C-alpha cells in the first residue's frame, strides 16, 4: 500500500524532495492557520441576537503585513528552487563525464541505444533495446531525447526526472542513479491512443552485474532490435486498443 512519493533513486532527487517538503510544511502551516482562523471566525462572529458587526473599512498595517510576508516567503522559495533547477536543467551544469544514451520515442514505445563496452554511442557495439534501459549505479548518464511523431514525456518517478520529448528537437537530460533495482519509466504527455501503455523499465545494476549483462548480450554487432518485446502489459487487453 505505497501511497506516497516513491523512494528517491537519483542524485538530485534528494534536493527536489527537500524543496517539496519545505513547501509542504509552509503551505501546511498556512493552511492550518487560515482554515483554523476561518472556523474560529465562523463560530465566534456568527449571528446572535443583539449583535452588530463592527464598522471597519480596513487596516493598512494588516494589509502591509500580509503582503510582505507572502512576498518574502515566495521569493525565498524561488531562490531555493532556482539552485536545484539549474543543476538539473541548465546545460552548463551537465556533468562532463556523462555516458550518452540515445532515447528515441515513437507512438507507444521507447527505443534505447546504449553504448557498448567502448563507451561511445554510434559505434557498432551499441546495444539496442525496446522499453528496457540498463544502467550502472553511481554513473552519470545523459539521455538524448528525440521523438519520431508527437510530443511524449520521459518520466522516471523514482529519479524525479521529467522532460518532454519534442519532435524536431534533441533535448538532453541527465541523471545519476544512486540505488540499484528496477524502476518504472512512463510517458507523461498525452501522445495518442496508446499513451496509457507506454511503460518501460530502467534496470540499475551494480558495476559487475552490468558487465556480466553487457557481455551476455552475445555478439555486439547485432544492432538490429532484439525482439524481447515487453510492451504488452501482463493483463490481457479486453479489446484491441482503438484504431492504432
Amino acid at each position, binding site marked *: *500500500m505505497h*501511497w506516497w*512519493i*516513491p523512494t528517491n533513486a537519483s542524485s538530485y532527487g534528494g534536493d527536489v524532495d527537500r*524543496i*517539496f517538503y519545505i513547501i509542504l510544511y*509552509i503551505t501546511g502551516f*498556512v493552511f492550518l492557520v487560515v482554515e483554523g482562523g*476561518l472556523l474560529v*471566525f*465562523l463560530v465566534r*462572529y*456568527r*449571528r446572535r441576537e443583539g*449583535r*452588530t*458587526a*463592527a*464598522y*471597519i*473599512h*480596513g*487596516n493598512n498595517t*494588516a494589509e502591509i503585513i*500580509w*503582503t510582505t510576508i*507572502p512576498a518574502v516567503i*515566495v521569493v525565498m*522559495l*524561488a531562490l531555493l*528552487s*532556482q539552485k536545484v*533547477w539549474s543543476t*538539473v*536543467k541548465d546545460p552548463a551544469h551537465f556533468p562532463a563525464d556523462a555516458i550518452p544514451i540515445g532515447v528515441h520515442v515513437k507512438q507507444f514505445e521507447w527505443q534505447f541505444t546504449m553504448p557498448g563496452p567502448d563507451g561511445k554511442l554510434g559505434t557498432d557495439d551499441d546495444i539496442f533495446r525496446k522499453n528496457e534501459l540498463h544502467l550502472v549505479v553511481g554513473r552519470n548518464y545523459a539521455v538524448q531525447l528525440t521523438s519520431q511523431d*508527437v*510530443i511524449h514525456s520521459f518520466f522516471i*518517478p523514482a529519479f524525479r526526472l521529467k*522532460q*518532454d520529448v*519534442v*519532435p*524536431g*528537437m534533441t533535448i538532453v537530460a541527465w541523471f545519476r542513479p544512486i540505488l540499484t533495482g528496477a*524502476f518504472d519509466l*512512463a510517458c*507523461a*504527455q*498525452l501522445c*495518442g*491512443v496508446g*499513451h*496509457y501503455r507506454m*511503460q518501460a523499465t530502467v534496470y540499475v545494476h551494480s558495476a559487475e552485474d552490468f558487465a556480466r549483462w553487457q557481455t551476455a548480450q552475445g555478439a555486439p554487432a547485432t544492432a538490429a532490435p532484439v525482439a524481447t518485446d515487453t510492451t504488452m*502489459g501482463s493483463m490481457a487487453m*479486453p*479489446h484491441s*486498443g*482503438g*484504431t492504432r
Partner: protein
Amino acid sequence: MTAAAAPHDAGLHAGHDDRPWLRRYVFSTDHKTIGIQFLFLSLTFLLLGGLMAMVIRWQLGFPGTPVPGGSILPDAMAPGGVIRPSFYNALVTMHGTFMIFFAVMPLLTGVFANYLIPLKIGAPDMAFPRLNMWSFWLMIPAGTLALAGFFVEGGSAASGWTAYAPLSNSPLYTGVSAGQILWCVAIIIFGASSLLGSVNYIATVVNLRAPGMTWMRLPLSVWALFITAILALLAVPILAGAIIMLLFDQVLGTHFYLPTGGGQPLLWQHLFWFFGHPEVYILILPAMGIVSDVIANGSRKPIFGYTSMVFAIGGIAGLGFMVWGHHMFVSGMNPTLGTSFMASTMLIAVPTSIKVFNWLGTMWRGNIHFHVPMLNAIGFLSMFVIGGLSGIFMAATPVDMYIHDTYFIVAHIHYVLFGGSLFAAFAGIYYWFPKMFGREMHDGLGRWHFGLTFVFYNLTFFPMHLLGLGGHMRRLYDPTQYPFLAPMQPINVFVSVSAFLLMAAQLPFVWNFFWSLFRGPKAPLNPWRDNSLEWTVPSPPPHGNFVETPTVYRGPYEYSVPGEPEDFLPQDRPAPARQEAH
C-alpha cells in the same frame, strides 16, 4: 466584424414594453433575458461535462469493465459498453473543453456580467444591446459544433483541451480529423462571442455608470467582471489566431506547428498558454468578485480593504499575462525562461493572498448570517485556499518537474475551478435567483445541496493530490497497465465512487432550481438586505431597469453603519444629515 455599430436606441424607459414575443424572449436585446439565456445554456453544458466526467471516472475506477448504461454508445465509442482508448481521450478532451469554454466561462462572465453590470451601475441596458444578443447567439453554433465532434467519423478531438501540436495537427497521430476541425471552428466562434461580450462589458462599465457611481464606489463584483472583460479582450484573440493556424495546418497543409515541415511545436504551447493563463484568471476573477459581495453581505460588515482588493484584482490580471511559461517548465522550453516564469508565478501568489486575508478580515468581528449564498462563499474561500496553496508546489520548478502532468495538477485545477469558480457560481445563483425570476429558492434544499457537494467534492478531489504525488500521470486510459501505479488503484476506486456521489449531490440543486422557477414563494424586493442598486428595482426588473436613473451617494458595502436604524444602507438612499465617509 460589424463595424457600423448602430447608434444606441436612446429613450429606453422602464415600464411599457411593446416588443414582439420573438424580440422579447428569443432574440432579445435585454441584458437580463440574455443573462438568463446564458444561465440555461451554461447549466446544460455543465451537466454534459459532468456526465462525461462520470464516464471518465468509471473507466479510471474500474478499467475495462462496461460502463453502466454504456450499451447505448455505438461500437466506435464503446464496444459492449467498455469504452475504447480513443473515445477515452475524446472524453477527456471534450470534458475539459465543455467545462471551461461552455460551462464555467459563460456561467461567470455570460450570466453574471450580463445580468449584473447594468443593474449594479444604474444603467438601463448594455452599451450595445444588439452585439450582446449576438454574443449569446454565437454560443449556440459553437456549442453544437463542439458537440457534433462526437458523431463524426473518427470521433471528436482527442488531443486534450490544450490540443498540443503535433498531436492535434494531423489525423495521422490520433485518427481524428473532422473532430479536431470542428473543435477548432467551435472555439473560434466561441472566441468571437466572448470578444463581443467583453467589448460590451468594458464600454458599459466605463461610460454608462449612473451619476455618483464613481470608480471607487463600484461593487467588487463589477470591478472583477470589468477586469475579466479586459483579460478576455486581450487574451482570446491570441487563441483565435493560434487556433486559426492550427486549423490551417489541418486543412490547408500549412506547417506552423508540424516539425516535419519546419514548424515549431513549442510555438503552439507558447501561444496557447499566453491565452491559457489569462483564461484561468478569467475563470476565477468573477468568482472572487461575487464572493466579495456575498461575504460582505453575509457578515453584515463593509468589505475589508476595498482599495487593496481592487488593486489585487488589477495585480492578478497584470501578472496573469506574464506567467504563462509555468505550464511549460518541462516542455523543452529554454531553462532560463523557466527561471523568469518561476519568479513571476511566485509573485502572483501575493495578490491572491491579499484577497484571501481581506475576505477573512471582512468576516472578522462581523455578524455572520449563514444564508445559502454565504455557505457557498465560505465553501469557495476554504477550497480556494487549498487550490492556491497547491499552486505554490507547481511554481517551484524542481517540484513541478516531478508533479507536472500528474494528478496533482488535476487536483489543483479542480480545487480552483470546481472549489473556486463553481462554488462561487452556486453562491451567485442562490443570491440573484430571487432578483432574476421573482421567486425564492428553497432554503433547506440549498443547504442539503451545499453540505453534500462540499463533502463529496473533498472526497473526490483531495485524494487526487496523493495520486499525483505517487506519480500517477494525467489522461491515462487504464492506470493498472503501469506496475508502479497498480498499488494506488484503490485510491482511484475511492475517487470514482465519490465522484458518482458528487454528481448525485447535484440533484437537490436541479430540483430546487426548476421547482422554484414556477412554485417558489414570491421574492421580496431585497431578500438579502443588500445595498446594491439591483435590489432597489422590482424582481424581476422591467425592461429598461430603472424608472429614472438612480443617483449614488456611497459605496456598496455600508453595512452596520453606527447610528443607522437598519444594518444596511442602500447606495441610492440620499445621505441624511452628515456627509458620508467616501
